[in-house]
């Protein structure tokens, strides 16, 4: 019998929600690391019992936790993220040069094949890799060394590297995204990188079609078709059919194309999900109605999904790492809100249930499908 394990990072700890394949009854464990901000928890595809968690605090800095038993027990591992060489500067909010400073880990992306290899996306934006289960971390410095690094600047949430996509068909290809620098790709295992922001238009920056400077909120792919990418930009939902070489807008009939999350159905590469948010000044759903929008055509044509979601007086946000899908036959879609709810649809979005309702503000949601 299949099981599902949902890994939830919140403002005050991590929670692990488990259910059988029906996804009707849920057990909740936690808070793990109570009182700490848990930016992200993610399991290894190669060993589902191996989990990595980013535990952070304004008081105590960054801690990295690792579990070898699916989250029952944890151990602190390496939390030293030294930038390679002289870190240099990036742009600050006012355009002045600001030294690169490590603040926290936003996202872990475990290797598809090796439980001890894991990538970390950090603030101030850089990509690190560990090959010893998180004990030691080395920067993939070619990213900041691309040459555009001094022109990167923070988004409102900080200058974070928040998305890491590993190409399942090509171990040398990795995509990453940074707010507010944009998306980048390596084709040589991380040694060198190129910006992949052509086709993006950001009217809030001095040069709307600049090579870098775009506030990319999230990118997603389907593992069967890793050359097709979907992006939720600050404003605009975008699609690329050529590994990011060129993007085209697919916002179509969305009520607003601002938002943070985007994800892809586990079995239908053209079925994608977003949660429109009213605006960058009003981080809540339009009209106070929490609606997931689904496109079965890879964008442009969107339908609202509302059954089981609050359709009045709802003013939560859904942060960029807070949506995930399982891989059961009837694909499950999950997302968490800043109001502490975690919603699940066991039927690809048609019907929704709150599987946790009163957690701390949710930062991240990941799902493991266990056999």
């Amino acid at each position, binding site marked *: 019998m299949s099981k599902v394990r949902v890994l939830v990072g919140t403002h005050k700890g991590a929670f692990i929600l488990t259910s059988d394949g029906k996804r009707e009854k849920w057990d909740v464990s936690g808070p793990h690391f*109570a*009182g*700490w901000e848990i930016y992200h928890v993610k399991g290894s595809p190669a060993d589902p019992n191996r989990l990595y968690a980013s535990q952070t*605090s*304004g*008081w*105590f*800095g*960054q*801690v990295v936790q690792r579990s070898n038993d699916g989250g029952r027990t944890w151990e*602190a591992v390496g*939390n*030293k993220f*030294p930038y390679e060489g002289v870190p240099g500067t990036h742009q600050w909010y006012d355009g002045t040069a600001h030294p690169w*400073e*490590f603040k926290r880990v936003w996202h872990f992306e475990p290797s598809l094949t090796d439980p001890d290899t894991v990538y970390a996306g950090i603030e101030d934006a850089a990509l690190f890799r560990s090959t010893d289960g998180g004990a030691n971390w080395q920067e993939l410095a070619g990213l900041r060394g691309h040459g555009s690094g001094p022109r990167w600047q923070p988004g409102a949430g900080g200058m974070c590297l928040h998305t890491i996509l590993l190409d399942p068909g090509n171990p040398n290809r990795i995509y990453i995204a940074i707010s507010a620098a944009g998306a980048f790709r390596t084709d040589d295992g991380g040694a060198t990188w190129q910006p992949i922001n052509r086709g993006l238009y950001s009217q809030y920056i001095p040069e709307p079609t600049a090579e870098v400077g775009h506030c990319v909120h999230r990118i997603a792919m389907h593992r069967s078709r890793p050359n097709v990418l979907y992006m939720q930009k600050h404003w605009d939902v975008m699609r690329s059919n050529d590994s990011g070489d060129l993007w085209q807008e697919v916002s179509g009939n969305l009520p607003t194309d601002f938002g943070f999350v985007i994800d892809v159905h586990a079995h239908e590469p053209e079925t994608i999900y977003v949660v429109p948010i009213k605006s960058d000044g009003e981080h809540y759903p339009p009209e106070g109605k929490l609606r997931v929008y689904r496109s079965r055509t890879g964008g442009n044509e969107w339908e609202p999904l509302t059954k089981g979601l609050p359709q009045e007086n709802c003013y939560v946000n859904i942060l960029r790492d807070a949506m995930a899908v399982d891989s059961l036959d009837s694909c499950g879609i999950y997302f968490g809100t800043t109001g502490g709810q975690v919603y699940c649809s066991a039927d690809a979005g048609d019907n929704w249930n709150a599987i946790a309702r009163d957690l701390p503000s949710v930062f991240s949601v990941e799902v493991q499908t266990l056999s």
Partner: protein
Amino acid sequence: MIRVVLPPHLRTLARVGGEVKVDVPGQVTPRSIIDALEATYPMLGGTIRDYTTQERRPFLRFFACAEDLSHDPPDTPLPEAVVSGVEPFLIIGAIAGG
């Protein structure tokens, strides 16, 4: 042995309860105490002082013998009462955040 009181979150992280005691070779200073703490409890590395700057994290304070020692240079010798174990060295989390 030097007595050290950690803030509750760091006690949980280090899996200790109440005070901890660390052997501090040489002169007893804030720096040498933290060196000893990090050697005994590696999970505390980077949580009391920043790895890069080696400076005390801004929301933590160091106290001993009813004195705020937070702004003393890190190699300042601590009072004899701390060295002799009569008084603990206190690492306090600031009351902040609302």
